[in-house]
């Protein structure tokens, strides 16, 4: 690794602040910037020329028909795949030499389209896995239960509980994650991702399988998370009420290419987007 990955030491859990989010500062460097990002699988170009910038406290949406390459973009950002072309600047740092772990430590956290919780671990332990890099004590301390261990474990426990309380899930802490109902599992995935102390949270179809009232609650929670932790959120979602309701910027992908970018209102009226979703108007 040519470049040492350094990140400011962080508190276990960011202190929730009641301050209003400052107006989006356009001059401030974006948290994430993709330039001409692309990946080929053999002869197939899955994503091509993907350009996107996300502000530090922006909620952005990535939409597009099935198979457009949205999840592939997430996989590129989290280095599940190494991009074939282009650069990703995370907080101004090129992520090219980083792997998934380093990208995570550098501030990107994600959830998955198909829930990938640690089903056999308790809810609390799932969150603590997310806290892994924030809690520091040695193995000897852990086995011998030295005072340092208890202090750190107590801190980790408190942090986990505090994070779970965002979704009111404290009471489920001892349940096995795999036994939770579907909606709760989706929420737990978000909590686990938040536990890694990200500056950019990627949500892959957070509302999939939720009913309208759950979706409405999720929308509130996403905004609340952004306002509390002052982080950016990029979400993939098919539920247009959610996307149009909370996203400040939207990017539309089709066949791996961006066909439109803009505010929800601009996207709604974009002829190319309408065509991609509904098909071409037949000439009469």
């Amino acid at each position, binding site marked *: 690794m040519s470049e040492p990955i350094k990140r400011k030491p962080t508190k276990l859990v960011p202190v929730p602040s009641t301050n209003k989010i400052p107006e989006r500062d356009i001059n401030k460097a974006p948290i994430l910037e993709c330039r001409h990002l692309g990946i080929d699988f053999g002869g197939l170009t899955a994503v091509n020329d993907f350009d996107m910038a996300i502000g530090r406290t922006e909620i952005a949406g990535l939409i597009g028909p099935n198979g457009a390459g949205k999840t592939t973009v997430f996989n590129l950002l989290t280095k*599940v795949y190494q991009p074939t072309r282009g650069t990703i600047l995370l907080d101004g740092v090129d992520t090219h030499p980083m792997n998934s772990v380093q990208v*995570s430590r550098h501030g990107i956290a994600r959830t998955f389209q198909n829930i990938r919780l640690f089903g056999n671990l308790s809810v609390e332990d799932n969150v603590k896995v997310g806290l*892994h*890099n924030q809690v520091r004590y040695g193995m000897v301390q852990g*086995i011998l239960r030295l005072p340092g261990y208890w202090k750190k474990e107590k801190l980790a426990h408190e942090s986990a509980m505090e994070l779970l309380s965002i979704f009111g899930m404290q009471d489920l802490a001892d349940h096995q994650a795999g036994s939770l109902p579907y909606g709760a599992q989706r929420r737990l995935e978000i909590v686990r991702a938040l536990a*890694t102390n990200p500056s950019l949270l990627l949500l892959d179809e957070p509302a999939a399988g939720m009913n309208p009232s759950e979706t409405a609650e999720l929308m509130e929670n996403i905004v609340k998370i952004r306002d509390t932790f002052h982080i950016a959120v990029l979400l993939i979602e098919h539920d247009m009420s959610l996307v149009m309701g909370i996203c400040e910027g939207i990017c539309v992908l089709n066949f791996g290419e961006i066909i439109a970018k803009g505010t929800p209102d601009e996207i709604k009226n974009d002829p190319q987007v309408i065509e991609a979703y509904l098909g071409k108007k037949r000439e009469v």
Partner: protein
Amino acid sequence: MVFFSYLISGISLGSVYAIIALGYTMVYGIAKMLNFAHGDVIMVGGYISFCAISYLSLPPAVAVLLAMVVCTVLGVLIEGLAYRPLRQAGSLAVLITAIGVSYFLQNAAQLIWGVTPKIYTSVVSFRLPNSLTRLGLSSEALVTVLSCVVIMVALTTFVNKTKMGKAMRACSEDKGAAQLMGINVNATISMTFAIGSALAAIAGVLLCSAYTTLLPTTGSMPGIKAFTAAVFGGIGSIPGAFVGGLLLGIIESMAKAYISTDLANAIVFAVLIVVLLVKPTGLLGKYVPEKV
């Protein structure tokens, strides 16, 4: 009385199997591979402690520590050099490599220490009062069973209560997701090998103390038996390795005592087959339904 002494020797043998089986089961649980070289790490542990005691005249406790350190380094080296490059390869490639490593270790030991059996002096120096030895309880057996219990408790605590343990459990369930949560999967797997190999060293010392001869092939049969024990108890499960190891040791000892010494191994494996026919995941193994 005779039955009791057979039971004790079975439990003591089973404890050694259990300690070895822990290494198999942890590596399988986390790296999803069968490390067939594990048995030979036991042998290396035996030789290292033998050399430390006989040639360097170190005290037994220091010899055991030295064996643990050497085996830990060896385990991490084996993982890093032989298995890590094959992480993306099919499981058969890793399996064959493991068998290769096993033969490599055996032959290397033959080159270094020769083929003549070494007479191992027990590391356990205290003697039990006669009233106990008359029951068939030897000091080695006592130390073996105690170490096994201590190791089980320490390991269970480690895996369930520490963050490294949580990282291990997370890796065993979903490496990809663990990685994206910032867990270094390679380091976690190395750690697993380190722990497994340190345990193998302890098992090597205990085994050699009980049986007193040391050969380059000393580790292979106990290795296979312990693997059987791990499967018996449910591979991937730590309590399973403990239960499987103990049961296997007791069955073997009883079969030797009451049926036939020659048939003992056959009986052990026959029991395994029956258990797997009835409960394919082993005694404490979990059935994981394949999602479609």
